[in-house]
């Protein structure tokens, strides 16, 4: 799937595994050098001190290598000298080598130093070496066949580690190397036993295959991309800890290692062959719901939740799933469990983000609450009544109604449904100007050429046909939003469109393409949805599972050469991310016609 000579490598993607906190990347600045890092400390690969160069050694000397990886393992190779690494979901990784050793050299991103190491000790029982790495926790380096040796140099005057090399050495007689590297904070995580290495690789493949089975098949011609996308969501699945009480799918492994709130619902949408898992994904953020206000945190990390907030996406996700496969998974018990939580979340918006008009119209206080950080509809600032937020709320109200019904609360269900209908009418009557949906700030319409202006199409056939037709027309007009690779987040006729450090002010972004094509499909505009989704998915399949793409090398509105951030960087356009993966999976398996 990935490798030196494969279509994709680990310069932008990461080698990882579901339930493991380790990752491997290829150094952008030193091509061919793989590096081992970890997600737990939440540091970006550009600044973390906890990164090890992986050096394939023959008779103790480093040699160049090529690599190949799939879901089972990653193989480093130089002729007959091979080292294979497989991750587990039990707190350790395994190494198997033939005629080769592996040296892990600590080389921090910022200064190339080894200061992340606070100490390394040969354990008294001879089982290996334990290293202490501060925020990154501890590592136990253990030889199962062959030997482990640690070379460390500390500056005694400062106590700072200046060099750390862990040598995993093959057995002199057999040439075989087998080792395990455990990651933990207090004591070694219980892991059962060390299975045969090839069994571990097979188990990883089986685990991935089981993961793939939760998604339906991709449309013809998009299967390859679907495999990479599924691999991305699988390999970004977090470890369960005291702060992350259920697995979340991290946004990125080596850049922003966060479980973003609304992205968990994105992840749920294509999981249609395992609706229970999809439902669990949607519900997982409610584990961290504020008991007083009902608010959900914006992001989760291994250190806990943050105080930001993201849109009420859960209703959109649940509405989509129900339309596709029904809702038998919403048992009475589940409805009873989740109804009060969903209701509280919905009422959070209408209470704490009320626009003060006496109805359910909200006014958001930051662009992050809309999900579109730099959409041009927020040019005039805040508080802003955003029709996208209102559309999400309509679908959330309907979901609350469904849960109420399932819990046997018919009266509540009817009330929520009525609120949904009224809010829908308000969106149509007050936020549609004949051409697009407008954002309002201090009572006036914000003038903008943002793609977000068409997102309320997610209401599907709840909208009048004339609106549906107009939105479909606008979204398929070539040269405006529609580009050769999908919908641009700002019209290409907009003088403010950019592909530089930006998210939705010009780039072709995965989530918007998914949302709008799902919306068009729900509105009966299958041909239009198909057209857009095919373009976007084809590009992802060619270029990689990356969140946002520049559709041109120039800015069409002005003719100027487009600038982009210098790689490698965390922002859209560079790293692989699960957010693109889940959007691709939804589009390729559910939107594109089969």
């Amino acid at each position: 799937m990935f490798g030196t000579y494969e279509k994709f490598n680990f310069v932008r993607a990461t080698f990882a595994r579901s339930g493991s906190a380790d990752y491997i990347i290829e150094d952008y600045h030193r091509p061919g050098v793989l590096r081992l890092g970890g997600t737990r400390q939440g540091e970006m690969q550009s600044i973390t001190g906890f990164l090890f160069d992986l050096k394939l050694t023959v008779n103790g000397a480093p040699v160049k290598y090529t690599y190949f990886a799939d879901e089972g393992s990653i193989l480093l190779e130089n002729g007959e000298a091979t080292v294979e690494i497989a991750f587990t979901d039990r707190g350790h990784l395994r190494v198997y080598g033939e005629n080769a050793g592996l040296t892990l050299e600590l080389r921090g991103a910022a200064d190339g130093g080894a200061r992340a190491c606070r100490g390394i000790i040969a354990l008294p029982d001879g089982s290996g070496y334990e290293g202490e790495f501060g925020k990154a926790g501890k590592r136990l380096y253990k030889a199962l066949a062959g030997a482990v040796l640690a070379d460390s140099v500390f500056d005694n005057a400062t106590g700072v580690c200046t060099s750390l090399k862990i040598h995993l050495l093959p057995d002199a007689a057999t040439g075989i190397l087998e080792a395990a590297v455990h990651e933990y904070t207090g004591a070694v995580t219980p892991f059962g036993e060390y299975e045969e290495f090839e069994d571990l690789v097979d188990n990883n493949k089986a685990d991935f295959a089981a993961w793939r089975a939760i998604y339906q098949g991709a449309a013809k011609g998009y299967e390859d991309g679907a495999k990479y996308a599924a691999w991305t969501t699988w390999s970004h699945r977090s470890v369960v800890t005291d702060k992350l009480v259920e697995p979340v799918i991290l946004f990125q492994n080596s850049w922003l290692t966060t479980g973003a709130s609304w992205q968990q619902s994105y992840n749920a949408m294509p999981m249609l062959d395992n609706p229970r898992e999809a439902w669990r994904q949607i519900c997982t953020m409610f584990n961290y719901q504020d008991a007083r206000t009902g608010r959900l945190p914006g992001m989760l990390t291994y250190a806990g939740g943050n105080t930001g907030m993201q849109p009420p996406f859960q209703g959109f996700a649940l509405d989509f799933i129900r339309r596709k496969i029904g809702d038998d998974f919403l048992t009475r018990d589940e409805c009873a469990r989740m109804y009060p939580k969903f209701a509280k979340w919905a009422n959070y918006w209408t209470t704490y983000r009320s626009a003060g008009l006496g109805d359910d119209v909200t006014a958001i206080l930051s662009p992050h609450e809309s999900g579109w950080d730099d959409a041009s509809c927020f040019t005039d600032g805040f508080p802003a009544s955003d029709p996208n937020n209102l559309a999400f709320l309509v679908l959330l109200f309907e979901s609350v109604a469904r849960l109420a019904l399932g819990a046997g609360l018919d009266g509540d269900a009817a009330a929520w449904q009525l609120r949904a209908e009224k809010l829908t009418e308000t969106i149509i009557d007050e936020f549609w100007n004949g051409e697009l949906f407008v954002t309002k700030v201090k009572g006036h319409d914000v003038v903008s050429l943002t793609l977000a202006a068409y997102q309320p199409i997610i209401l599907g056939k709840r909208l009048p046909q004339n609106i549906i037709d107009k939105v479909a027309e606008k979204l398929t007009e070539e040269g405006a939003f529609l580009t050769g690779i999908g919908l641009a987040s700002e019209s290409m006729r907009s003088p403010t469109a950019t592909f530089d450090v930006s998210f939705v002010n010009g780039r072709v972004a995965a989530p918007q393409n998914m949302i709008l094509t799902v919306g068009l499909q729900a509105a009966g505009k299958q041909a239009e949805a198909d057209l857009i989704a095919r373009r976007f998915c084809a590009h992802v399949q060619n270029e990689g599972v990356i969140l946002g793409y520049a559709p041109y090398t120039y800015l069409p509105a002005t003719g100027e050469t487009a600038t982009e951030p210098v790689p490698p960087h965390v922002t859209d356009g560079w790293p692989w991310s699960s957010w693109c993966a889940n959007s691709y999976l939804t589009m390729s398996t559910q939107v594109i016609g089969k």
Partner: protein
Amino acid sequence: MDNLKPHMKTLGFGHRASRHMVLEQNGKLWITVSAEGASFFLDSASAAVGLLEIDLIDGGESVPYTYEAAVGSIGLKSAKGSAKIVIDTAANALRITGEGVSLRLDAKTAPGMATSINTPRGTELTIGSGRYLFQSRTGKISFDDTWLLTQFHSVTPVLNLAADGGKFDLVAYDVPADTEPLPVTKTPEECAAENEADFLEFCGTLVPVTAEWDDIRGAVAYRLWLGSRALSNGEPGIVNNKLVSSETDAWRQSLTSFAFADADKAVPLILNLPIEYPFVQGSAVLRLLESGLLKKTSRATVYQLYDALRAKVLWLQENRTLGGVFYYAYRFETGLPAPKIFAVGEPVASPDLYAYLITACEALAQLTDLTYNDGEASRWRTRAKELAHDLVSELWVDNTFVAKNLYTGETTPADALLANMTLTIGKLLPVHIAAPLGDGDFAGFGILAAFGLLRAGSTDKARKITEKLLKSARENGVTDTAYGAALLALAHETL
């Protein structure tokens, strides 16, 4: 503390029950909030930095001002008018009132991710780790909350409060998201008086010292009072400097506990964080035991202390012994950044680790005495003696304490501070070994060694050391809260 000015650049003005703070920066006063932990986009706690500069305005122009600062309030004076700053803990607000001038709060630069919004209930500003809601009780606020779309933050926050009838009255709430502000019911004078009284009441919970050292006591008391805050685990703690510290270490909390004359105040400081390194909690508990303070506390507290100490001793027994000898695996376990003992490499046996274990065992014995379990107490006492014997037999070589690599047997003289920690075991340390150590290093947690001198009956030596340390604190200032707390206790016990 009638004059806080010497501390305004380093510690600032604040209140133990509030995040609001004021500090002097670049010749002006700034409002800020106490340091918070690492944010999503930052990798370390925010540094001591003012968020909004305070300016007095006349005719649209800034006027120079001087200020006086006391625990209860700060008074600003200019040629045109004056202002007063207090913390209103009932309303969780910082209040600035003035007359003859108007007020400006200016961030000077637009910090990343600052968002500001003018709303019907006031001006809301999220800046750094601060989250303010500004309301005017007198005067008119003007504030530009323009959003810079492609920079993901608002314009530089500048709040102008124009005086009305020559007066202004601004309330800056520290209000969590989705929370209504509390009503303002007190005058600034009432707030100032209340805060002064709170400080004095807090001082009353600390151990007394002779009047000669009241200035040191006041300086330590202010650091302790101001440094009170919730730690990230939700437990109350006292940090070194609330402007820059959002967390503290378990050993610092233990040293801080020494300052309190009441076990109910001291014990939570010992227990609120997991016991890490250096393992000084035994000394902290011995202080409570030997002063009789634990006799006035509950049996549950005794058991809590017992369980915590025992767990650490057993953990060390299980994870840090080789052939029955205790060792350090990592440098940071000593509490020093670059301990010389690691020149011989790990695992390294060191005399201070034995000292911690011995004091812990002695504390466990005395705790068990309080529960009338003589057999158990006797076993802990025996263990303390065994460890004291091992300390000398393993690590006293050629009239000096050494550290030893347990794999190679190589030894090296122990750092002076680490060797000095053996004094904490009091009479369990042979006199001929203790005698030369008393002139050693008492910095940081090393001050605990002086308590050991008292425990050994070397009261004269302990007193001389105390006087020397107090004089140094007077000359150089009290620069560390935990150390200052322990020094206060030492002064209380020796002078």
